[in-house]
């Protein structure tokens, strides 16, 4: 199994070598150390039992399949070499099953299930749980097959198995029973839990932060579009807005009555206020009364005016953003 793992490690190191000049080297080692510690967590599972997770699910999501292969291999190597758990002779097989096959399975499942899901989507959490569950069970299945074929390959003259003593028919159910229930559940719970935690605390690490910013902007654009489409509703409101009177309103009896009603029954002055008379001609809007002359439909004119207005505000905002220097925190 060392022979099977070695080319994968070599490939992973080659792929990561370019990145090892940067933050990747400490990140991989630290993640491996984290995985080593997480393996010691007694995770209570529904039903009253406890299980241990490996951390392969979250490692594959954060580091990608090659990085996770290396990180989990490092964690298993530290366990086997330094703390004597797992043994040196079985390290190659453990790494192939859990670190290499497990990482690729977890990464594939997560990508597949979360395909097209929004950053905040619940589907991503489910994808993380399934990634952990699938990875651990694939690892267990591979281990069971490796155990199960040994009696066929290695036995002495009397038929006594030299290594693992059980055939596939026993090895597979014996391994899978524990992994489909306890170990798989522990990995699923830990992957989903840590995914949710990271999504809150450091979404960039999960590679979903860049999508969330345009998404927020996209929803803002959606609100703006709906607001624009609803602008003709303003026509339905009776009368003019308070204070937005034209000089001619002061001469019209009906308009005077509306001004008085809107102003707490205080009658409008008999003549046009001198300030208003002087300033009324100062600024002639390019679209007087919000409706260009060439448009018959008031509602459409209203909508068009609103779009021009919004466009002008956005343009001004963009200009201010470009002109003013950005202050770094």
């Amino acid at each position, binding site marked *: 199994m060392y022979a099977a793992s070695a080319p994968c490690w070599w490939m992973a190191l080659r792929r990561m070598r370019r990145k090892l000049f940067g933050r990747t080297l400490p990140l991989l080692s*630290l993640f491996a150390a984290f995985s080593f510690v997480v393996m010691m967590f007694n995770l*209570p599972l529904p039903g009253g039992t406890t299980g241990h997770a490996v951390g392969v699910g979250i490692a594959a999501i954060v580091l990608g399949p090659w990085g996770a292969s290396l990180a989990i291999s490092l*964690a298993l190597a*530290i366990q086997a070499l330094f703390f004597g758990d797992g043994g040196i*002779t079985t390290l190659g097989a453990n790494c192939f099953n859990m670190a290499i096959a497990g990482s690729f399975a977890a990464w594939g499942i997560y990508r597949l299930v979360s395909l097209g899901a929004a950053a905040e989507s619940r589907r991503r959490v489910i994808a993380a749980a399934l990634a952990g569950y699938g990875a651990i069970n694939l690892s267990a299945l591979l281990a069971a097959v490796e155990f199960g074929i040994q009696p066929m390959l290695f036995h002495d003259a009397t038929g006594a198995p030299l290594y693992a003593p059980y055939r596939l028919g026993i090895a597979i159910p014996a391994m899978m029973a524990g992994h489909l229930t306890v170990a798989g559940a522990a990995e699923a719970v830990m992957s989903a*839990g840590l995914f949710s*935690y990271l999504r809150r605390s450091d979404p960039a690490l999960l590679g979903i932060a860049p999508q969330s910013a345009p998404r927020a902007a996209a929803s803002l654009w959606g609100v703006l579009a709906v607001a624009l489409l609803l602008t003709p509703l303003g026509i339905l409101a009776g009368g003019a807005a308070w204070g937005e009177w034209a000089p001619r309103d002061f001469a019209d009896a009906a308009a005077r009555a509306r001004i008085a009603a809107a102003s707490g029954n205080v009658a409008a002055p008999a003549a046009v206020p001198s300030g208003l008379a002087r300033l009324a001609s100062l600024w002639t809007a390019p679209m007087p009364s919000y409706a260009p002359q060439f448009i018959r439909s008031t509602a459409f004119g209203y909508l068009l005016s609103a779009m021009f207005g919004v466009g002008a505000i956005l343009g001004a905002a963009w200009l201010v953003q470009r002109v003013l220097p950005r202050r770094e925190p």
Partner: protein
Amino acid sequence: MSTGVITRTARGFTSVLAQALISEHSAHQRGVLQALDPRVKVVGLLSLVLATALSRHIAVVAVLLALAVALALVSRLSLWSMAKRVWLVAFLFTFTIAVPALFLTPGEPLLQLPGVPAITAQGTRSAAMLLLRVESAVTLSTLLVLTTPWMHLLKALRALMVPVEAIMMLAMTHRYAVLLTETANAMFESRQSRMVGRLEGREQRRLMINSGGVLLSKTLEMGNQVFLAMQARGFRGEIRLLDEFHMRGRDYFALGALLAAAALAVAAGR
């Protein structure tokens, strides 16, 4: 059950930290294996592990186990502590796996107990072989770890053509595995000291996952700090390991003896 999970997890951390201390302590004792060049131990003892794995005769595996015990004795390792920490754990784990093989392996019946299938000769031989092989390999690899300081052991892996990047990452992983174990231990102990009453299963699960999340945040933060520290010390992607090993006469002799023993075991065990 109220604090059971937290207590058990914290105990696990303490035991790992204790084991790390014991290894460092025994690696600095004045014994036969401790005095050898780490590269000799890596190549020699791993050859014996390989011979154990390749041997098809139970007697050869038993001799290799006896050789490993003898090496432990001349290296001033406590057999009692070895029995408790290594042999008993390996025995219990392997025995659980091996017991059904006594009954399930097809072959000539050796002993018929009431109500169960007969224990077969092939099953007994297979179970004994599995037990002895595991005990022997575990003892030999434990000898390597207990008689060599960890950093020397890693540098010696270069003798097995392990890439320098892998060695550096293993060294960092080990260092931060111990540090993070200490951090996690402190987190769980502080939580334990503040707990009164029972925690339901769901709350225990939430506590564990939140602790994992906090530890992951600390890990990533530490990863950034480590990278900045590496940069501050001039890291530009080139990895250099200080190699202070020098082979002496006794190292050559020990290497020859260990390789000869492994070769003999492989030849006799075929």
